[in-house]
C-alpha cells in the first residue's frame, strides 16, 4: 500500500481542527467531511494491513519458538 498513514492522519487532524475552530464554511463542509471520511478509511485500512502483517510475523516468531 503506497498511501502514507502519517500524512493521511495529519491531513485528517487538520480537517478536524478546521471544523473545530469553525474555520470551515458550509460550502466546504461536506467536501471536507467526505475527504475526512476517505482519509479515515485509508488510515483504517493501513492499520488493518499493518496489524495483519505484524500478527503474521509475530505468529511465525511464536511458532519457531
Amino acid at each position, binding site marked *: 500500500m503506497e498511501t502514507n498513514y502519517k500524512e493521511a*492522519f495529519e491531513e*485528517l*487532524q487538520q*480537517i*478536524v481542527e478546521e*471544523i*473545530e475552530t*469553525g474555520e*470551515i464554511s*458550509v460550502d466546504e*463542509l461536506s467536501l471536507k*467531511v467526505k475527504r*475526512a471520511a476517505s482519509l*479515515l478509511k485509508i*488510515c*483504517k485500512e493501513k*492499520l488493518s494491513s*499493518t*496489524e495483519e502483517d*505484524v500478527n503474521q510475523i*509475530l505468529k511465525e*516468531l*511464536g511458532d519457531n*519458538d
Partner: protein
Amino acid sequence: MSAERQIFTLKQVATSIQRLMSERYQQNYWVQTEIHKLNYTTKGHCYPELVHKENSRIVAEMRGTIWATTYDKISKNFAEIVKEPIRDGMSLLMLVKIVFHPLYGMSLEIVDIDPTYSLGELQKERDETLKRLTKEGILNNNQKLIFPLLPKRIAIISMDSSKGLLDFYSVTQNNPWNYNFFFMLFSANLNGDVAVNSIVNQLNRIEKVKHHFDIVLIIRGGGGEIGLSCYNNYLLAKAIATFPLPIMTGIGHSTNITVSEMVAFRSAITPTELGDFLIQAFHEFSVPLDNAKKSISTKSISLLEIKRKELKNEIRFLSKSSSLFLIEHKNSLKNKLLLIQHKTIQSIQNFYLQTNKLNFVLNHGVKNVVLSKKNDLDKVKEKLEYGFLESINQNRQKEKILADSMHNLILKLLEKDKNHLKLIENSIRLIDPAEVLKRGYSITLKDGKLISEKNPVKIGDIIETQTKDIIINSKILEDLRSAAAERKT
C-alpha cells in the same frame, strides 16, 4: 742441689703422688669441661678425653673415666632430660673425683653429669643461632619464597631407606588421584653432629641443579626425640634459611622446635604429614580445575538459558508493544472519527443558529421599520392639524387686533378732530386769517396746504403767499436757515 742424689723407684714416686693426691683431693669437685672424645669401650666403660678450649685452642686436657655402671645411670638420665645422648664435643658440668693411679696415671673419675647444665648450653646455642640469623636478617628468607603452585619436583635429603622416607613414599606415590611426583634422594646423615655437614653438603649440591626442583624436603626417619640439637646449629639453619627453594622439614618430635625447623618454609613432625601436605597442594590445584570445569559447564548453560529467556522476553515485549501501538493508533483514529462527527454536527447547528438569528433579526427589524414609519406619519399628521388651527387662529387674532385698533384710532381721531374743531373755533375767533391778513400777516401754502413738517418746502418749490389783498406765487431760491446751519457744521 746436693751431689749425693737420692734415687726413687717409679713405684715410690707413684705411691708418693698417689698419697699426696688422695690427701690433697679428698672430696669431689664440679668441673666444667668439654668431652673431646667419649671413648666408649666394649665393656661399657668410657674414658673420655676432657679438654678446655680458649679461642678454639685446647689449653687443658685430662683423661676421664666413667665406669660402666655409672655411665648407664648417667647417660640414661641425661638423654631423658636433654633429649640428646652424651657425645663428643659436648660441654658438660660433671662431678669428678681426682684420682691418681700408679698404673694409669692421673684421671678424673666422673661420678655424675648435670643434665640441666647441658640443657642450658643447648638452649644457649639455639638462642645464639636465632639471634645471629635475626641479626643477619635472613631468618625468614626461606619462608618468603613463593611456594610453587604444584610442588611436583622434589629433592629429598634423607637417610637411605629410613623408615620415615618409606612412610613418605607410601603416602605420596601410588595415590588414588594419579598425582605424579618426581623424587630424587640426596642421602645424608641426619642425626648428631655429623648431620650438619652432611645436610649442608647435600643442600649445596641441590642448589647446583635447583632448576630441576620445586622444593627440598629434609626427612629424618626415626630416632625419636634424641639427637635433634644439631638442627639448632647456626650453619645448618643458615643454609636452610638462605636456600633458594622452599625447604620443608620432617625431622621428628621435639618439645622445643629447632631453629632449622623454624626457618624452613614449613615443618612437619612426621614425613607422613609432609606427604599429606604435598597431596593437599595437588588437591588445591586440582579442585579449582574441577570446579572450573563444573562452573564453566553450568554457567555456560545457564548463561545460554538466560539469553534464551531474554530473547523470549524480547519477543513478548515486541508482541505486546506492537499490539499496544496498534491499539493506540486505532483509538486515536476512533477519537478522530468521534470528533469529526461531533464537530460537524455542531458546526451545522451553529450555521442554523446564525441563519435563524438573522431570520429573527430581519423579522423584528422589518416590523420596527414599518412601525417607525407609521409613527413618523402620525407625527406629521398631528403637526399638520395643529399647524392649521394655529394658523387660522393667528389670522383671526391679527384681524381682531386690526379691527380693534382701527376702531380706537377712529374714535381717537374723531375726538381729536372734535377738540381740534373746538380749538379751531376758538382760535378762528382769535386768529381769523382774514383778521390776520388784515393786520398785515400773510399765509404761505404749498400745494394748497399750510407749510409744516408734514408739508415741507425745498429749494425750487413754488409756494403761494396770501395777503389781505393778493395771492403771490413764488419760487424758493434759498433756505437761509438751512444754509446757515450747513455753514456752521
